[in-house]
């Protein structure tokens, strides 16, 4: 298992592997998102307290969950970058950032819309710790992207951004535990799998899980595509790239 993981760190192998796996992942992603959306919007019942607006949950919860997970992946890849200087780790971190930022944006916007329906007249609550820390997460993603593209030296930039990602890692537990540590408009936590299984009604559990799968697959697919193009760009003078391109030209 570790040997395969180590092989995956080699650019040509990663390129070949992702090329094989991508079509299946892409189809699976499209299917799960479509099924999830259809199920969540039209089949799942309205909540007895929140009526139809609970349907926003099927987007908000997966987006928020993965906005944090992707950041953790970015920070881990950053740690690998700083310790072992593996090029692919640098690219995976940089490729994840825009997706993570997008998920955070989706979480913030859908959360704000959902909040307006549930908590009355406001789209935003400045005193809520979870909203605040999620907003900080969004700024961290933007700062990461800005720092990465600020210098010409790709590898140095990747290491600087890695330091930033690791420093910002303290924000993640704050987002997650904010509902336990402070009084917040978010009641309780629905982010742990076992808690979801316990507290969410089964008829809503399935579309939620399918949407989570869809968001996860979307991350995988977009990440692989981004990494592939960054790989091609940075290794364009290498033999394996030339071979790949000529194969692509004349299949």
């Amino acid at each position, binding site marked *: 298992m570790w040997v395969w993981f180590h092989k995956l760190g080699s650019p040509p192998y990663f390129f070949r592997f992702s090329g094989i796996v991508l079509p299946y992942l892409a189809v699976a992603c499209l299917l799960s*998102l479509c099924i999830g*959306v259809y199920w969540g*919007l*039209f089949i799942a019942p309205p909540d007895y307290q929140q*009526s*139809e*607006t609970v*349907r*926003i949950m099927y*987007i*908000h919860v997966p*987006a928020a969950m993965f906005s944090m997970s992707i950041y953790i992946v970015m920070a881990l890849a950053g740690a690998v970058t700083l310790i072992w200087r593996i090029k692919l780790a640098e690219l995976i971190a940089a490729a994840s950032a*825009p*997706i993570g930022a*997008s998920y955070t*944006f*989706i979480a913030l*916007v*859908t959360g704000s*819309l*959902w909040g*307006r*329906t549930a908590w009355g007249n406001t789209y935003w609550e400045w005193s809520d710790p979870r909203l605040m820390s999620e907003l900080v997460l969004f700024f961290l993603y933007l700062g990461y992207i800005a720092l990465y593209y600020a210098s010409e030296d790709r590898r140095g930039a990747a290491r600087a951004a890695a330091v930033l990602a690791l420093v910002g890692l303290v924000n993640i537990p704050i987002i997650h535990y904010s509902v336990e540590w402070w009084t917040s408009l978010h009641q309780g936590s629905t982010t742990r799998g076992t808690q979801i299984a316990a507290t969410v009604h089964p008829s809503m559990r399935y579309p939620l899980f399918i949407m989570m799968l869809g968001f996860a697959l*979307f991350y995988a*697919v*977009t990440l692989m*595509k*981004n990494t*592939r*193009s960054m790989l*091609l*760009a940075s290794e*364009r003078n290498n033999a394996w*790239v*030339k071979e790949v*391109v*000529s194969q*692509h*030209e004349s299949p």
Partner: protein
Amino acid sequence: MSLPEWLNFGKWTPFILASYVITAIVLLANIVMSYRSEKRQLREIALKLRRENRGKQ
């Protein structure tokens, strides 16, 4: 613009629909950009290779 009946979700319909639509736009933008970026890279490198080969001949 009035919505068809099957898109009616009661009082908060605009919020629910807006959530789904905004999400769709953001996700589509991401995936389209990543696919196009890879295609562009492949095309650029192929062009460069063809120019090199022509130069060698």
